[in-house]
């Protein structure tokens, strides 16, 4: 097998045995990118030169017997995570020329662990979307069927992992932006507990919901990446003072007796029947591994979408105010200050971003605040309570990750509401702040991947990694590769 098709732990083992060099891996990945990238369009920036240089450096370190968890491994980073001296655009015209003068905490931690940046992955502009069609530059295509979307907003990162254009990737997840594209591209994607991973350097969409997480070829790799990026950061006041366990330690443990909650609200009318079947099979599979399915209820689920969009867009309307053409990024020529603001923002932001800024601005307006923002916060508390109640009786919750498989490019682009419904199963997890993971659990008759979502208690990523890994290892889904 070509090196580009392997995961982190396999490659690290080969590197440790000196059977391959980091340069071999990077060259293999570069060849792969040359071959498939035109069809996939996963990257906004490919940092080939830089990666080859870093590989040389990694190989030197290995010669000196230096060992690091990610030494010599090429990783793609979603283009809303700041990388010092490397273009970081958020797939927006307004930041099309923005080169950060600083390194995000997550990439600084990856650097410390020896990773190699291979490229900056495409996304929906400012992570606002579920299909990666809202990138200002170009849409990314699903490696399993290039007429289909890869999901979003981390569509570039998920597609790059699925198409073997990198070994692993970092995405960000505000309402499902890691888990959804992971499911639709047939890879593993995890959103850690809110506060588990520093957000410093992640260009904010909705500050109280955003979280960075791994997108990988298997569950163990997700644990390896999480090990590297997790932990308190003094630069992020919302990062938690929590001990960080070795997340790979639970990989391989059995799941006998683990209670798996199946929330009835997540099996709804209008869901793709093939997905219902695949997820039910997955639950049976968990049962065969010794887990105990229990029907549970998350009664406020139906209010999650409304609450999510009010809160996320309110925060977004404020977070995106800094893109005004004054300090960096795109500036439209204008004679007056007000014109400069209006033109820079009108021309710099895409339709979907503008739509969301307007909704958020409206929701926060004087006289509407109580009816929208405050009410949505109350709903958020109820949804959080729902999860806390359920976790009194079960250890983990299993649901489909998405209600449908990957849809066609252009299918929902003019119907924002339909597009928003794509996140129906993922965004409650962000509202509650709990961790969630999507693992491949089957394919539709059209050979499109289906994802199983596993949700855990606050800061209990170990539980979802353990169950996800046991499930993954008992199936063959993660071994399938798209035909490219």
């Amino acid at each position: 097998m070509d090196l580009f098709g392997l995961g982190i732990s396999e490659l690290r083992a080969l590197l440790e045995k000196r059977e391959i060099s980091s340069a071999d891996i990077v060259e293999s990945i570069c060849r792969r990118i040359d071959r498939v990238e035109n069809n996939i369009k996963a990257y906004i920036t490919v940092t080939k030169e830089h990666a080859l240089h870093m590989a040389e450096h990694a190989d030197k370190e290995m010669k000196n017997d230096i060992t690091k968890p990610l030494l010599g491994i090429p990783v793609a980073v979603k283009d809303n995570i700041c990388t010092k001296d490397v273009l970081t655009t958020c797939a927006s015209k307004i930041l099309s020329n923005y080169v950060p003068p600083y390194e995000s905490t997550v990439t600084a931690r990856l650097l410390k662990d020896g990773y190699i940046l291979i490229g900056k992955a495409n996304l929906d502009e400012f992570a606002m979307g579920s299909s990666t069609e809202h990138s200002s530059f170009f849409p990314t295509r699903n490696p399993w069927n290039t007429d289909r979307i890869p999901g979003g907003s981390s569509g570039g990162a998920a597609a790059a992992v699925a198409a073997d254009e990198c070994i692993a990737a970092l995405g960000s997840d505000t309402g499902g932006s890691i888990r959804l594209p992971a499911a639709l591209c047939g890879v593993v994607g995890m959103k850690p507990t809110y506060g588990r991973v520093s957000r410093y350097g992640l260009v904010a969409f909705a500050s109280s919901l955003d979280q960075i997480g791994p997108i990988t070829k298997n569950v163990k790799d997700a644990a390896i990446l999480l090990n590297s990026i997790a932990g308190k950061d003094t630069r992020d006041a919302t990062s938690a003072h929590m001990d960080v366990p070795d997340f790979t330690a639970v990989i391989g443990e059995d799941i006998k007796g683990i209670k798996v909650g199946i929330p009835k609200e997540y099996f709804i009318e209008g869901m793709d029947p093939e997905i219902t079947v695949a997820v039910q099979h997955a639950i049976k599979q968990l049962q065969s591994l010794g887990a105990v399915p229990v029907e549970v209820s998350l009664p406020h689920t139906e209010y999650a979408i409304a609450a999510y969009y009010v809160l996320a867009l309110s925060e977004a309307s404020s977070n995106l105010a800094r893109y005004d053409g004054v300090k960096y990024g795109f500036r439209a020529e204008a004679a007056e200050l007000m014109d400069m603001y209006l033109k820079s923002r009108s021309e710099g932001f895409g339709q979907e971003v503008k739509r969301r800024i307007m909704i958020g601005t409206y929701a926060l307006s004087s006289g509407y605040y109580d009816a929208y923002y405050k009410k949505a916060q109350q709903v958020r508390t109820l949804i959080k309570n729902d999860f806390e109640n359920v976790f009194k009786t079960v250890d983990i919750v299993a649901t489909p990750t998405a209600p449908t498989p990957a849809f066609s490019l252009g299918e929902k682009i003019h119907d924002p509401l339909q597009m928003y419904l794509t996140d129906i199963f993922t965004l409650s997890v962000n509202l509650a702040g709990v961790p969630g993971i999507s693992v491949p659990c089957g394919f539709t008759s059209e050979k499109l991947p289906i994802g199983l979502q596993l949700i855990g208690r606050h800061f209990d990523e170990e539980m979802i990694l353990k169950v996800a890994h046991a499930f993954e290892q008992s199936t063959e889904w993660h071994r399938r590769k798209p035909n490219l």
Partner: protein
Amino acid sequence: MAPKETEPVKFETIIGLEVHAQMLTDTKIFCGCSTLFGAEPNTQTCPVCTGMPGVLPVLNKKALEFAIMTGLAMSCTISSHSRFARKNYFYPDLPKGYQISQYELPICEQGHMEISVDGEVRKIGITRIHMEEDAGKNIHEGTGKYSLVDLNRTGVPLMEIVSEPDMRSPKEAAEYMKKLRTVLRYLNVCDGNMEQGSLRCDANVSVRPEGQETLGIRTEVKNINSFKFVEKAIDYERKRQIHVIETGGQVQQETRLWNSAKAVTESMRSKEEAHDYRYFPEPDLGPIMVGREWIEEIRSRLPELPDAKRERFVSEYGLPEQDADILTGERPVAEWFERSLAAGGQSKAVSNWMMVELMRLLNEENKSIEACLLRPEQLAGMLTLIDNGTISGKIAKTVFAEMYKTGKDAEAIVKDKGLVQISDQSAIEKAVEDVIARNPNEVERFRAGEEKLIGFFVGQVMKKTKGKANPTIVNDLLKKKLT
């Protein structure tokens, strides 16, 4: 059109002040940049305070401590649980497009401060004190097409201290500002410099006919950028409002700017044009939890405040109210005074020398007492020389000026300059006799009843002895010899 001076109906003025105080922390409120004033533009900045994509704020604990100190000094309730909020508006000097401030749940609430106006003590309520970040500065220079932005000041910690509408005259407002400045300087949380903008005052002003219960429509007067304008600006505004009402008009709720060159307030924006700041809780900063223990620890470190110090100076040192008031106006002055006392100075004498000579010399040079070469112990030393008759009060003035200039001890100066008082009866007698012998005309006039000429004789004797003769002995001898 000048506002009318006469008021047929008596009007009452209602004033509340919103004061912004820059805190004296070393670093900014949400990043580690220096707060140093006057550096080259955009050199005291980092990704956080310039609002780069992806950065996050982290609260400077010192700023929180300063706000709590101020709250305690003003008898506020300190919130165990408070929050930051975002105030959203666009302006080039505001790099994030929002200011991190506090809205609901400020750090301090419900305090008060006492002021004294024309001998009457008034209690002014403090509605709230909250923390926020300062904005940068737009620089409009030359005739270029562009304005420049300096972000050095962006993120410097501010306290906003909001009073109740408890003041009833421009003079009370001015007193309140003075008192506030004194307290902030005592706490060493703000340098209180209005001209440099480290203390800023916005006034909410309304008027109503005396006896009326409901409040009149208020205006907010901004840009009062000097202590001397507090009273002037508010006085102008109350007269303007009274004039509007008396000529059949209605005061409009609006924001007005004080124009110090024209000495008027001018409309800036109406209520309809007011911003909708779309406040909401700052999601990047969690709730601020302040434990009782920490509050008590801060309270225990509070310095003695001006009111308490003034009362103590009266009761402990027997100073007149006026002396105590002046000496406690600035903490370093009060400390200077007490150090001089500790070195043996007698309270009223030290007070007199400080208030008359020292303050005059410092004022002439526009110098602070901390920068003064003369040390309080040295004043005490000089007073001992007066008390034991080594020098006269008159000589002491010369000695004091020299001490102030050089920082040398009084004793050394007296010795170097040969300023020891002559108390030797025979030496003075000789000079007295000489003066009497040389001025027969004056002696005759004196003896004829022109008694004020005694001053002339004293002067002549002092001149002859180069001012060193003991004035008491000179007086006694002259009187004896002339009569």
